[in-house]
């Protein structure tokens, strides 16, 4: 989720009301984005992915104005610019939207805001420019007609902030943005480009030309949005132009001619959705009249018209997150105020209960404590060194992570015992005897399962003292099994982690379910342990 820092004075001037820091935080938190920090001059906000319309300072201010009732109605005028952009078939990036924005006052605030919104939208909503990329140009430097074409990598551009012309291919090799984003298009034969009479002025999703760069002298803008998903391209355009309109710029539409299809962008008409007043009330748990509900909808930027007991809701053109009626219900609840909703437990009698395995696990845990053992809790993630090498075991197939973030946690544990030895090894200054246990899951490969693996519940116990042996651990194990009423048998076992002749497998109902023994001193040395340790690990079935 993007975190963005804004100028507080610009935000307040766009809101049009002087709010204290507390008031500002309160209202923004209640609308949805989270206020992280407010300083003398700045406000930092963590946004949620569903509201890209709030990423820009203008959209954020608009939402605050609406929520506080400073602004009631909103209307976006769109004039026809008379411009047509012919769009050739560009397979790698097939969809475009264009707009002309006139009478722009490029104040420091607006320049900062334009840079901010492009960066944030590119990163998040644009999925790092793969899904959507934005180009902003000085309209007066463009010489129409404008075409969107698939350009050969050999064609040339003077990229932004450069003075020399270079091939598109060289942009990918030599220009920073080319190196960052070139991978999005480099595999295609033809690369996306906007051209006018003078040549390429936009090379999406990489870079603009220096010729059409925006400066403090710029009065009119040309916006190009390109992408792989038409809906997202159009929505991004709507967010941008409605933000600019908040600064009194004039929006003009552009005809996009795909040959087989013609569209006009931006399209700021509002989509309609019908909601049922009763259903909305039931969903939130309140009882609002249709009229009252319309007021809360207005607070959230919607227009609504009453039709019998239903509301026809007009969705603002910058809202990208309204897929279903429930999305509007949430906004009614937000308009009402989450903290004004009274929490209530419903009358819904159901019978509760524990999972069988957990009941048994708890019996075992309680029993282990009675026997003087200290419970510990460790990570399910482990590594092959701990799980196999240090235990003297051959490495075997194990659930392995593709993208580990540390060498400590690269696989899922097959055994709990290594975790216990690790705990003993970091506590050698603590008084002995040390007797610890963990009840928890290990992960085994099982090709029969839907997930090719299964969780197996185990208990592992390790006891350490200056003298400790098989008899001691066998006594603990036997006492534990007696408390939880499980019959078992022991059978001699050779296990590389244990001293030969002092290890047994644990058999229950003719199935081997665990092992018990004295840890071999070589294994202790691997863990840098200086006390003898005896241990067992057994499946809880």
């Amino acid at each position, binding site marked *: 989720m993007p975190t963005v820092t804004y100028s507080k004075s610009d935000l307040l001037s766009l809101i049009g009301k002087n709010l204290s820091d507390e008031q500002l935080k309160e209202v923004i938190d209640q609308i949805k984005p989270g206020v992280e920090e407010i300083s003398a001059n700045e406000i930092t906000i963590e946004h949620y992915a569903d509201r890209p319309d709030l990423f820009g300072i203008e959209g954020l201010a608009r939402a605050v104005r609406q929520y506080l009732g400073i602004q009631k109605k909103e209307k976006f005028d769109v004039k026809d610019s008379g411009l047509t952009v012919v769009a050739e078939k560009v397979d790698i990036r097939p969809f475009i939207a264009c707009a002309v924005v006139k009478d722009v006052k490029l104040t420091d605030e607006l320049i900062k805001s334009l840079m901010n919104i492009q960066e944030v939208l590119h990163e998040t909503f644009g999925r790092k420019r793969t899904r959507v990329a934005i180009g902003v140009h000085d309209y007066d430097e463009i010489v129409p007609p404008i075409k969107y074409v698939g350009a050969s990598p050999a064609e040339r551009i003077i990229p932004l902030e450069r003075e020399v012309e270079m091939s598109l291919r060289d942009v990918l090799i030599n220009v920073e943005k080319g190196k960052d984003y070139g991978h999005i298009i480099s595999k295609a034969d033809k690369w996306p480009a906007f051209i006018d009479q003078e040549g390429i002025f936009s090379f999406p999703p990489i870079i603009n030309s220096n010729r059409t760069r925006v400066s403090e002298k710029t009065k009119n803008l040309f916006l190009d949005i390109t992408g792989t998903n038409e809906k997202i391209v159009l929505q991004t355009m709507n967010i941008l132009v409605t933000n600019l309109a908040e600064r009194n710029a004039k929006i003009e539409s552009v005809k996009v001619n795909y040959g087989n299809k013609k569209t006009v962008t931006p399209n700021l008409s509002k989509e309609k959705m019908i909601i049922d007043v009763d259903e909305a009330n039931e969903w*939130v748990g309140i009882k609002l009249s249709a009229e009252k509900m319309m007021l809360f909808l207005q607070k959230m930027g919607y227009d609504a018209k009453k039709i019998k007991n239903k509301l026809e809701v007009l969705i603002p053109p910058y809202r990208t997150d309204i897929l279903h009626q429930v999305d509007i219900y949430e906004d009614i609840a937000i308009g009402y105020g989450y903290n004004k909703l009274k929490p209530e437990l419903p009358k819904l009698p159901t019978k509760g209960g524990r999972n069988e395995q957990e009941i048994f696990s708890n019996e075992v845990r309680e029993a282990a404590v009675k026997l003087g053992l*200290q419970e510990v809790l460790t990570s399910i*993630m482990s590594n092959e060194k701990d799980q196999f090498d240090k235990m003297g075991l051959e490495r075997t197939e194990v659930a392995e992570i593709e993208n580990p973030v540390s060498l400590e*946690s690269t696989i899922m544990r097959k055994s709990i015992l290594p975790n216990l030895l690790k705990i003993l090894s970091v506590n050698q200054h603590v008084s002995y005897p040390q007797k610890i246990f963990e009840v928890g899951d290990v992960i085994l490969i099982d090709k029969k399962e839907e997930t090719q693996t299964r969780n197996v519940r185990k208990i592992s116990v390790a006891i350490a003292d200056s003298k400790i042996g098989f008899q001691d651990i066998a006594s603990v194990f*036997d006492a534990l099994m007696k408390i939880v009423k499980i019959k078992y048998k022991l059978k001699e076992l050779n296990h590389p982690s244990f001293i030969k002749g002092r290890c047994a497998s644990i058999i229950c109902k003719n199935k081997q379910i665990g092992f018990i023994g004295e840890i071999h001193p070589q294994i202790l040395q691997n863990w840098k342990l200086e006390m*003898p340790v005896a241990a067992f690990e057994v499946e809880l079935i």
Partner: protein
Amino acid sequence: MAEYRLSEEGKEYLKYGLPEKNLVEFLNSLPQKTATIGKAGSKVKNLPIALKWALEKGWIIKKGDQLTLLKPPYQTEEEVALKKIDAGMKADEKSLKILLERNLVVKVSETYIKTKKSLEKSGNVIAELTHDMIRTDLWEGKEFKKIDVIHVTKKFKKASEGNLQPYRKVIEEVKEKLISLGFKEAKGPYVEMNFWNCDALFMPSDHPARSIHDIFSMKNPRYGKVLDKQLWKRVGETHKNGWKTGSKGWGTWDEDLARRLILRSQGTAVSARTLYKWKKIPYKMFIIDRVFRPDVLDAKHLNDLDQCEGIVVGKGLNLRHLLGYLEAIAKTVGAKKVKFKPSFFPFTEGSVELQVYHDELGWIEAGGSGIFRPEVTLPLGVSVPVLAWGLGIGRLSMIKMKIDDIRYLYSDNLQWLRKQR
């Protein structure tokens, strides 16, 4: 009895040669008597140690990355001394001093003498492995007396009580509370299919929270099995065009990605499985168990954490009921004040973030919740409202445990754990 004995490292060098000796021997074996550090490192064990001593002794010179032999290798006094000490003879003072400094030789302690004697007395067969034997390495090469593991006498002597893990105790209290509210406990696998963790929850295939920074993917095994083709079709259609949910859908769906195995990143995966499996409505389900996130944390942090996941499934449920359950859980862990904030999750609408007040830390985010979207419930076969939450039970437990550092939850400090009664 000799006064000194070889350390583990000393024994290794006696057997395989001193590292610096191995290095010069390696260089001497080359026609040009020179090699890069990288090359030498691949042939000579313990190269950093070898380098240090070979340079100090003036046997080699190092120019940049290049090592060149100056003197041919010869037997060193240290090697002679190591052999002597191992044989129980006296070594010369100068060599002994160096060997002690290099920790290749240690002074024979009284414990060593005592332990050695007692071992000799028992014919060098170990009846009982002791701390002293491990400390002195005297177990090495000795035989262990065989124990009759099957018939060994098992007589448990009652010692003092042990102690439950303090965080587990809080988890059990929350479980009890939920059970008293009519919740049934569920289970689910740690290695999970993307389908249950994300797709069945209407998270679009290209959702940023599905990136490698947010979810652990499995290298082995990689893909899960599709058990119910009809279900997969419903979920896929919902993503593509909304299916019969009344939604617009996302326009696309990546089925291959849905089959990929991952570590579950949210307990909500179990909620999705439950909605699909449990047919008798109404019901309440909970699970408090591990989830896994690849957050880059400091060394002491774990990549697994516990989540308290719950769903309430029944007619007539609403947002205020959801807040009711959140408040009840927060109170169970001793939170005095709670607050609700709008939030966003792809699978809920009416998304709520629970905030609780911690005396030391102030307001803390305790987790997310909401009413499941119809795009989640309908394809899974549920047509009544479903309240859902996934709370960071660790953070909530910090209130009850009166701790202000989350790392105590999985503490490996036995002293601290023993004190938490």
